[in-house]
């Protein structure tokens, strides 16, 4: 059963992402079952779900690397799979791992998207340099990936994604492989940048903290990527009590409270 609660929350006029009745099956396994939701311009939305809930499949469908079996997907007005190359420069992705090209320096990695967009070399270099400075890595511009720490590499990857000035940024568990302190710092830095620049962001994660600290809205996915909860989080970021209430609701939607009770019962 699909719980479609998006219509009331979304003004369809400024939707950057729109999924309508999307399904995707692998062999006999229905990874995404009749999913609908939207993300408005300038919004930071988190897709939260446990492992195997189909979060990454949803992200791949939005990225255009997978074709849906049914339903329609529009990203910035385009069909991301059918109009794959037409979406050049409109979307950038920050992945779970940094995925830096090892033969390029930090600066050259940040340049990459700009060069693919066809920006002149000197201009790409200037923009890349300014982005490295924004993520506090100006000193590391000539270092190769293996010479950087995990947090520094992820910063370079974020700079690479944001440097192309995309309308939409997708984050696939981008902070989950970092230690707690680095992850928290990076989350804050990213949110500040994204909000200042008015970027639309869709973040996939399995960590409730990431969702509460970063997102305007959370969409909790259950098995088959069915929406089990959709909730605004604007107040939760500033109010401790609302934050706790939101956390409990999310935990309930994820079925974590039942598991806690099971453990306590045992």
């Amino acid at each position, binding site marked *: 059963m699909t719980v479609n609660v998006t219509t009331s929350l979304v003004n369809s006029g400024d939707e950057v992402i729109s999924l309508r009745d999307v399904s995707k099956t692998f062999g006999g396994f229905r990874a995404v079952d009749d999913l609908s939701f939207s993300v408005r311009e300038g919004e930071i939305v988190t897709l939260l779900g446990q492992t195997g809930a189909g979060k990454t499949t949803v992200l791949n469908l939005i*990225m255009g*690397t997978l074709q849906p079996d049914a339903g329609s997907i529009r990203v910035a007005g385009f069909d991301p799979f059918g109009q*794959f*190359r037409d*979406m*050049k*420069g409109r*979307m*950038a*992705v920050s*992945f779970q*791992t940094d*995925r830096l*090209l*090892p*033969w*390029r*320096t930090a600066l050259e990695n940040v340049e*990459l*998207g700009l*060069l*693919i*967009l066809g920006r002149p070399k000197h201009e790409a270099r200037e923009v890349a340099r300014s982005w490295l400075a924004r993520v506090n890595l100006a000193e590391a511009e000539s270092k*190769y990936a*293996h010479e950087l720490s995990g947090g520094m590499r992820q910063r370079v990857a974020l700079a690479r994604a944001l440097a*192309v000035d995309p309308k939409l940024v997708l984050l696939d568990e981008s902070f989950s492989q970092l230690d707690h302190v680095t992850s928290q710092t990076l989350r804050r830095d990213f949110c500040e940048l994204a909000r200042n620049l008015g970027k639309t962001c869709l973040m996939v994660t399995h960590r409730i903290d990431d969702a509460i600290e970063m997102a305007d809205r959370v969409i909790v996915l259950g098995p088959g990527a069915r929406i089990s909860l959709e909730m605004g989080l604007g107040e939760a970021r500033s109010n401790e009590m609302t934050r706790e209430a939101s956390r409990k609701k999310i935990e309930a939607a994820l079925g974590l409270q039942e598991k806690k009770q099971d453990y306590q019962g045992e």
Partner: protein
Amino acid sequence: MTRVGNNQAMAASAASKVVGMRRESIWQRAAFRDTGATIIVVAILLLAMEVSSHFVPDYIMPSPVAVAKAAIGLANNDYSHILITLGRLLAAMLFAMVAGVLLGLVMGMSPIFRPFIRSLVIIDTGIPALSWILLAVFWFKNPETRIFFILVMILLPFYALNIYDGIRALPKDLVDMIESFRPSRWQTLRYLILPHIVPYILLTTKSVIGYATRMVIFAELVASAVGVGSRMGLAQSTFHVDQVLAWTFFLVVLNIVMQFLVTGAEKALLKWRPEASVR
């Protein structure tokens, strides 16, 4: 023990450690060890030659001095043959590298052409070098064309198959990353595939240099009147074993120099790659 005594003991211990470390570092230094081992091996070979030259005639084993004299004579009068052989080798290797890389790229990037090219390349790997040498003698009049053809047919599959394997080993993570920027095929080739296959090109070149040197000599012996291979054939037919060994010495030096150049290129082109060492 007093504090002074303690300090002296510690200083002595530290000094002995430093001396120990120095000794260790000299003996364990790879460059020193490699050079030392090479000198020892060469010395043993020269000694064996010298000893055996006293028991057998000159046309079986000349003394190292005779070989050195022959080498000096050849270096002064016949150096053009070394240059000809080197030119043939470099031209054929360069062409085989470019053509092999192109074929590898087509195999790696075009599912339509892949099975056809792969079949051709695999058939080529099964054809003995001697078959190409004999066929080249029948098919081409010009000795340069013969040798070029022989070497290219022998070396090309190494490059093609290694580059194809290199493209197959491309991490999917990096492909997905670059695809997220929606590049053209040319941009994917330029920013991802070509830099990724550089180590494969260098590794193949390093692996085939020795083989290519042996093959060019063999091809020259059969298919040409000039070049080191043909001169070695002449020396053998006139019982000048000292000259055969002198030419062999030049070929070994040539191979070492070429390996050294490729290693230099590798250091310059792959400076981004961290050096891993296994304990």
